[in-house]
């Protein structure tokens, strides 16, 4: 029954722009400081305090807009969104209501080998709210503490068109969006630190229908996985309801990570009237064409250009290129490796395979890793020189990742160097052959498994350090003479 429905998804993505100071005051935006140490009377909403727009935030918004193929509005303004909450010091959030800075735009994504263009409705600037801190859960905590360090950090809210059709597509769109914003250099986009946050609007309709179904907004999607799971859960919930003849209500739901389900927060009727109106403390912003040109001319390489470069220059597959361009750090790492080591495909495999696995397990970015482009390519050279085998190299890489030591040192320290010396190996082989005359007979009778036995014995004796290619060659030679 699910297959006769189509999922319609639009994402609202909030990214914190990486300005040094907040959007309307001079407080630092640095993440992770002691609570309420990055607060001043302005961002704490004291009487008489006035906002002054941080030009850098506008600059980043323009940059993001250009990277997302948006039109930069020549006129935009700020409005007050009014509501009471303890993390909102002025009891209004300064946002952009009807004249956002970025209009339209799109992102091209690839899902299951199909290219899809996801429309972007708009992107607007606003200030972040503070954070409430609870003891345990919000419902049982005896108190709420307020940390205003985040209050006033600049946000860009990027609203997509309802063009997304599956949970996977939503994740890929968000990954691509993140990659574009990272390359443009406007945000850190760290979901775990909250500098990239996502709400999803989901509705279901029968395949082929043109009308939209009843829309549900899901909040609290703090990871790519949560986004995918919440959409899948919600799509199923909505289809089940429709199939049971229930009427869906337009509402806001929250993703419960623990229970892996969405829960209703408030219905449309309970929704607040935010009483938007133009903020009289802030004059409208006029973005001159020269300003846009200036930002455009300073635009760094974006993922799509980088992608093409990897495919055209290094002959990588589209897929490999897309993985290497997920973050600018990955690309930078790859580019450095290529300067030191001439086989792009080999480098790509090591980064995408073993290194990425280690990074994911440790939950760190490639630039935070102790493995550098220099040490990784040194490792590859050790393989080429026959000092270690590819299999040994995987262990060395792990050691490098943990300790930051260079591969030569690790190989030496652990006595991991491959034994390629033919004389040493021949002596060993001689001994093993002599001690296993029964197996030699099997070999002569054509039992190919016997060769494997001897290789195994050599490896066992050398604790895996024998160079397998040489062992093979010597064994064939030796057994041939029996």
């Amino acid at each position, binding site marked *: 029954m699910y297959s006769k429905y189509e999922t319609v998804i639009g994402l609202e993505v909030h990214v914190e722009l990486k300005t040094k100071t907040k959007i309307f005051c001079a407080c630092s935006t640095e993440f992770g400081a002691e609570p309420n140490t990055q607060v001043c*009377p302005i961002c*704490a*909403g*004291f*009487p*008489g*305090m*006035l*906002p*002054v*727009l941080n030009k850098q935030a506008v600059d980043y918004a323009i940059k993001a807009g250009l990277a997302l193929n948006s039109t930069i509005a020549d006129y935009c303004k700020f409005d*007050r969104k*009014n509501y*009471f909450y*303890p993390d909102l*010091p*002025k*009891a*209004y959030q300064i946002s952009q209501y009807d004249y956002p800075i970025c209009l339209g735009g799109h992102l091209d994504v690839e899902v299951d080998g199909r290219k899809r263009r996801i429309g972007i409705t708009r992107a607007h600037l606003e200030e972040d709210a503070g954070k409430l801190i609870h003891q345990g859960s919000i419902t049982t905590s005896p108190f*709420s503490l*307020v940390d205003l360090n985040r209050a006033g950090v600049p946000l860009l809210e990027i609203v997509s068109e309802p063009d997304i059709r599956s949970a996977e597509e939503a994740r890929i769109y968000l990954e691509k969006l993140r990659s574009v914003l990272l390359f443009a250099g406007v945000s850190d986009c760290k979901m775990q630190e909250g500098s990239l946050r996502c709400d999803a609007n989901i509705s279901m309709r029968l395949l082929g229908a043109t009308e939209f179904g009843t829309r549900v907004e899901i909040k609290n999607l703090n990871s790519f996985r949560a986004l995918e799971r919440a959409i899948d859960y919600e799509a199923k919930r909505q289809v089940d309801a429709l199939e049971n003849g229930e009427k869906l209500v337009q509402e806001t739901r929250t993703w419960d990570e623990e229970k892996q389900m969405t829960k209703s927060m408030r219905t449309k009727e309970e929704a607040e*009237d935010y*009483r*938007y*109106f133009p*903020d*009289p*403390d*802030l*004059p409208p912003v006029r973005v001159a064409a020269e300003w846009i040109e200036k930002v455009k001319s300073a635009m760094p390489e974006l993922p799509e250009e980088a992608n093409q470069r990897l495919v055209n220059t290094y002959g990588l597959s589209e897929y490999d290129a897309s993985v290497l361009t997920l973050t600018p750090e990955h690309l930078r790492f790859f580019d450095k490796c290529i300067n030191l080591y001439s086989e792009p495909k080999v480098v790509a495999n090591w980064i995408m395979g073993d290194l990425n696995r280690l990074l994911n397990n440790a939950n760190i970015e490639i630039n935070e890793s102790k493995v550098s482009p220099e040490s990784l390519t040194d490792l590859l050279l050790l393989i080429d020189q026959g000092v270690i085998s590819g299999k040994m190299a995987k262990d060395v890489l792990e050691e490098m990742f943990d300790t930051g030591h260079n591969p030569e040192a690790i190989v030496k320290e652990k006595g991991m160097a491959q034994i390629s010396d033919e004389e040493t190996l021949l002596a060993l082989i001689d001994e093993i052959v002599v001690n296993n005359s029964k197996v030699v007979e099997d070999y002569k009778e054509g039992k190919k498994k016997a060769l494997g036995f001897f290789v195994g014995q050599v490896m066992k004796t050398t604790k895996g350090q024998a160079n397998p290619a040489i062992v093979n060659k010597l064994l064939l030679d030796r057994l041939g003479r029996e």
Partner: protein
Amino acid sequence: MSAYKLTVNQLINKVNNKQLSPSEIVESILGRIEKVDGRIRAFITLTGDSARNQAKQAGNQTEAGVLKGIPYALKDNICTNAVRTTCASKMLEDFIPNYDARVAKKLKNAGGILIGKLNMDELAMGTSTELSAFFPTYNPWDLTRVPGGSSGGAAAAVAADEIPFALATDTGGSIRQPASYCGVVGLKPTYGRVSRWGVAALASSLDQVGVLAKNVEDAAIIMNIIAGQDSLDSTSADLPVPDYTSYLGTDIKGMKIGVPRQFFQKNVASEVKAKIDQALKKYEELGAIIEEVSLPHSEHALAAYYTIASAEASTNLARLDGMRYGINDLTAENIEDMYTNNRGLGLGPEVKRRTLFGTFILGSCNYETYYLQALKIRRLIQQDFEQVFQNFDLIISPTTPTTAFKIGSQVHELLDLYSNDMLTVPINMAGLPAISIPCGFIKGLPIGMQIIGKPFAEGSIIQAAYAFEQNTDYHTQKPVLGVK
């Protein structure tokens, strides 16, 4: 003559000539306050100790600013570092800012000495200072009457010689109307001329800081200090500031003055009209050209003003939630109760009324009907003024329809109370500069004349006001407080 009676200019000269020390001035002022403020009740907070210390230090300084040793006071919505700033609201009764408003800082840097903080209608909402959450202020000319508002404390203090000058705010007439009622000079500069930073907002698009002083010359001296762009106030104008004292004593021959007929309607007392007519004759004698003009949309100004001002106030004051400062009911069961109790206990009835009104207006269903409509009227009012100013240098009208009313007489008559602002509100709606100067007495009560100028033409206003002042003696008359 006792120091407290002197004007700012006289005090500056006496200090420069070493005829008076800052300490002598401060003592004289504090003595005067002690003597009369029990009856006037202009001050919410006195900073006598720090004023005495500052005066002592100033006395030892060889070089200092223009205002070296000159006392001043501030309306209590102008934030002062380490000095309680209450906005005459229970909510902020114990609020001590850790910052100086830009204007407070400028006066401090000029060597001025803060004597105290002045009473006002709570959060600047009102026209009588009866709506102070603490106590009313009394009109020095008749203690049974109001001093006007919301800057009633400031006007009364200047009128009673408790302070040589004061800074206050004017959103719809809050400087000019009390100036008229108390017989002092009240100047509201062009919107954007003076920084609003650190001044608790009522209606951000209308608020402007200005001066209450004993004469026009003093107002010009103070304007020289407080005017100018402020990088912390995005709405402050990036325009050069002239020397306002250079406009004092210049000829007004040939100056064209428009008199808007809509400002002389039947709700303006005939005695008031007569006083303004007299004043206009004086201007004619001085060589000005007087002609009737029309500002047809000003009759809608009051309704549009209360719509816009309440809308902005409802969100400006939302920060007074008790979470970070102000009254906080920690016994509340939940967050909704906490908000309700904090604001319920902390804010007075007029503040609540306008907050509710403003919240209603900004609601998505009413926004177009009320708020956008009011903005359109505002634009039309601006256009009226622009049109007149194509042919005229200044506009003159009464400041208030009547003289000061009796305490308690209008408290329950909302529309009467609001209509005290009807002649001053259009000027804020257009963002223009205007001054109120004394132009006579009716049954022993002073009445003011309003002179309105083009945007940023405070100089012309000062020029015309000074010319009138030089040829009249209304500003030199003092209320009799029966002090022995």
